[in-house]
């Protein structure tokens, strides 16, 4: 392990809660509905993060708790039953309904597991119900996906068939690219989790080799291990280096020679390096500060330093699973400062003191930092854009070079002519 410096910080945080992950999960599984059992705050959070208005009827919603639901839990269970019945009557195309716990439902101890069990019996053969918590008291942003995937694992049948299982939501086009490369490598049995249809869950067992696409799936990994799956240890497929090592780890697990892999991916690497050049020119030597939010921060720091030659001031992460992040941390330069957790005020003090060229942060902080003259990139864009894989390395770099380029354009001297 490289000699990185680990720090922990507690205090007021400026991060999304796990409910936010519904925004990409519902797009991944168009036959599923995500029903948050929560408050008006939860509903408002999701619609603010997701731009709900573009949907005629979104495939997510909130059963908003009212005063009478808080008075007696028995009534709350009945009420939830009624809401679910109405919803299924209105949306008969729903195949899987996720009951998503929230801060208030967790605090009043609303037992969504029991509710889901009852509903499963009633709607057998029509709709499946699973539950997980996306509450802010337990989960940060992308961790919501961890909860949703973990909840699906018990529904996955067992099979000892050898297969490669890609775990973590990917953009569809990226997923297709990955599968094509793996097939060319000679791995024919490849599946994804989550699947594109919630009902088409992959079968898993002792010959399932899991390759993670996202770094925020601690609980899912644990449960997959319990089901006998082998977890392939690798960095995450962000950037050329990460993706190459990721492919390499998979090739190794399937006893495919390194030479063969290089034969297939070398042309991809070469053209991607070329595409990366123009971004590197902008990013090189620029100083980067990553605030914690998406949990992708460590992988992004590794990519932006190793491949784009940025200097790392501080790498924030909402939480740190050293085991899962081992391969990533090994690739970081010595003396990288990793800060787990957050005290947003103290962290912003450090941002100002260190005078960075670029700050990766949440949407709540971006404009205020810009107003102080600090360029920013909002982290939520990472979870909506296809950024994985060798082919996407330049696009990923582009997300960071664009604000700098824009800043250059807007502050360039040629503008000041009048």
């Amino acid at each position: 392990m490289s000699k990185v410096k680990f720090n922990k910080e507690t205090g007021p945080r400026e991060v999304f809660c796990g409910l936010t992950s519904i925004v990409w999960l519902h797009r991944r599984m168009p036959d599923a509905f995500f029903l948050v059992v929560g408050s008006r705050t939860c509903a408002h959070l999701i619609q603010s993060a997701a731009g709900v208005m573009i949907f005629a009827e979104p495939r997510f919603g909130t059963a908003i708790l009212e005063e009478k639901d808080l008075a007696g839990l028995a009534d709350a269970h009945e009420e939830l039953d009624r809401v679910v019945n109405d919803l299924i009557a209105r949306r008969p195309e729903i195949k899987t309904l996720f009951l998503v716990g929230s801060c208030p439902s967790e605090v009043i101890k609303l037992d969504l597991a029991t509710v889901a069990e009852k509903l499963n019996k009633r709607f057998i053969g029509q709709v499946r119900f699973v539950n997980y918590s996306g509450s802010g008291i337990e989960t940060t942003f992308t961790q919501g996906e961890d909860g949703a995937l973990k909840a699906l694992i018990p529904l996955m049948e067992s099979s000892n068939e050898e297969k490669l299982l890609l775990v973590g939501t990917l953009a569809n086009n990226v997923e297709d690219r990955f599968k094509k490369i793996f097939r060319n490598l000679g791995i024919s049995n490849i599946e994804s989790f989550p699947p594109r249809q919630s009902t088409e869950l992959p079968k898993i067992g002792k010959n399932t080799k899991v390759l993670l696409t996202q770094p925020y799936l601690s609980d899912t990994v644990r449960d997959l291990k319990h089901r006998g799956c082998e977890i392939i240890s690798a960095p995450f497929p962000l950037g050329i280096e990460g993706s190459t090592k990721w492919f390499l780890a998979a090739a190794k697990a399937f006893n495919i020679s390194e030479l063969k892999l290089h034969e297939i991916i070398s042309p991809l690497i070469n053209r991607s390096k070329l595409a990366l050049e123009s971004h590197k020119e902008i990013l090189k030597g620029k100083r980067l500060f990553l605030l914690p939010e998406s949990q992708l921060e460590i992988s992004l720091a590794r990519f932006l330093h190793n491949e784009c030659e940025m200097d790392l001031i501080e790498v924030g992460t909402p939480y740190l699973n050293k085991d899962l992040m081992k391969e990533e941390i090994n690739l970081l330069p010595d003396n990288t400062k990793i800060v787990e957790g957050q005290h947003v005020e103290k962290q912003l003090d450090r941002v100002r003191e260190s005078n960075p060229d670029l700050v990766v942060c949440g949407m709540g902080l971006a404009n205020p930092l810009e107003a102080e003259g600090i360029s920013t990139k909002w982290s939520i864009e990472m979870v909506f854009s296809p950024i994985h894989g060798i082919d996407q390395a330049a696009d990923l770099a582009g997300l960071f070079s664009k604000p700098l380029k824009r800043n250059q354009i807007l502050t360039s001297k040629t503008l000041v002519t009048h």
Partner: protein
Amino acid sequence: MELTLWTYEGPPHVGAMRIASSMKDIHYVLHAPQGDTYADLLFTMIERRGQRPPVTYTTFQARDLGGDTAELVKKNIKEAVERFKPKTLLVGESCTAELIQDQPGALAKGMGFDMPIVNLELPAYSKKENWGASETFYQLTRTLLKEKVSSSEKISPLRWKELGRRPKVNILGPSLLGFRCRDDVIEIQRILSEQGIDTNVVAPLGASPDDIKRLIDAEINICLYQEIAEASCEWLRRNFGMEYTKTIPIGIKNTVEFINEVHNKLDLPLTNKEELEHKSKLPWYSKSVDSNYLTGKRVFIFGDGTHAIAAAKIAKEELGFEVVGLGTYSREMARQVRATAKELNLEALITNNYLEVEDAMKKAAPELILGTQMERHSAKRLGIPCSVISTPMHVQDVPARYSPQMGWEGANVIFDDWVHPLMMGLEEHLIDMFKHDFEFVDGHQSHLGHTATKTENFVNSEDKEDKNSKEGIIWTESGRAELTKVPFFVRGKVKTNTEKYAILRGIPEISDETLYDAKAYFS
């Protein structure tokens, strides 16, 4: 429990944030879990604010719940006060913290600070954003002014005469995330100053706690947005005798009435009465012959109480539209909206469910929709022109240009904003009329895109599925052919009316003649 896919209003603590963020020298410590910090982006992204809202979130986690969350609250309050040095501290809780009952307000008051502390109790499971904003502004006003209540004499609106100066008023209600508040304030101040009236304080937008303490230096209050300021105005009236205005100056008639009301209250002679109607282009633009085609345009209105009521009046009296639907999501203003609807022979739609609004829009078959951003999206699907008149805020509702809704310039803005989509609507009609001409390029699209065509299909396909309506009425070939010739935006209405007529007369089959019979009957 209420199933909500989308909501017009956020929770009440977001209302409190609107007040805190609108003001200076205030800090709000909000006992809330992580995730609730999303609300910051409403201000930094939608309003494009260059400052963070002055809010500290305690961000307690599940593991804190077993321990001492009260200590966590106190730690955050202490740090926030040391760092931000506010002149007044707001302390409250969001939905989850309300359940764990740490009473952060009481904790803060026990910490020995000498600044005023406002303990906000905003019931998250029964109230909403605007109520939260109103309650926060009221509690703040009360806290900062209560010491002066007993010592003060009632404030006479005529006091300015004794003091030998121009009359002074406060403008109360404008806040961040309020619809065009930034520009309304400028417009109203301009109008008042033209009339020889000075603005004492504008609050909450841009005010500090010291400004709130000075509210009683004015003679009367202008209640600019009832949703936010009525409770405070009422308290100031009861305790200091300060009168406040009831007219919302949106539209020409309301602006004139507003100026009259202010002058009457202050007993200030109105010397430029004749001039007033010429200060906006709306009256002439509306009278000019080009606007003839606006007559009787069917308009559907939905928004917050203040803007929906004002829009109904402008639509009917100043533009000559026919209001065919009126509603609001502001339950606090339901009574007033119902009264306005009744005057228009309508039943008001009071709901927080946008799908109900969309259904009502479909049924009313309007030619123009005045609504929120959500109605703009629904309208797009229905192929009906729309203009946005009310919150909830969207980044488009914070235009770079000066764009008030109130006063003279507000009326100009309204004329343009409401009529321009209709011009396009007229273009749509022309396309419909000339689509069989050989010069006409198939697939020509106006700004409404494909949806307008779909609306035709919507009526037609409904026919196919439901050829025989419930009452057993059949549309004959000639009837159907005639129906397709009716302009798309009234086709739904014509269809319903014809069927209604057929039922009334016991006509089993609707032919082209029935259509004309029905037309004559209903006109």
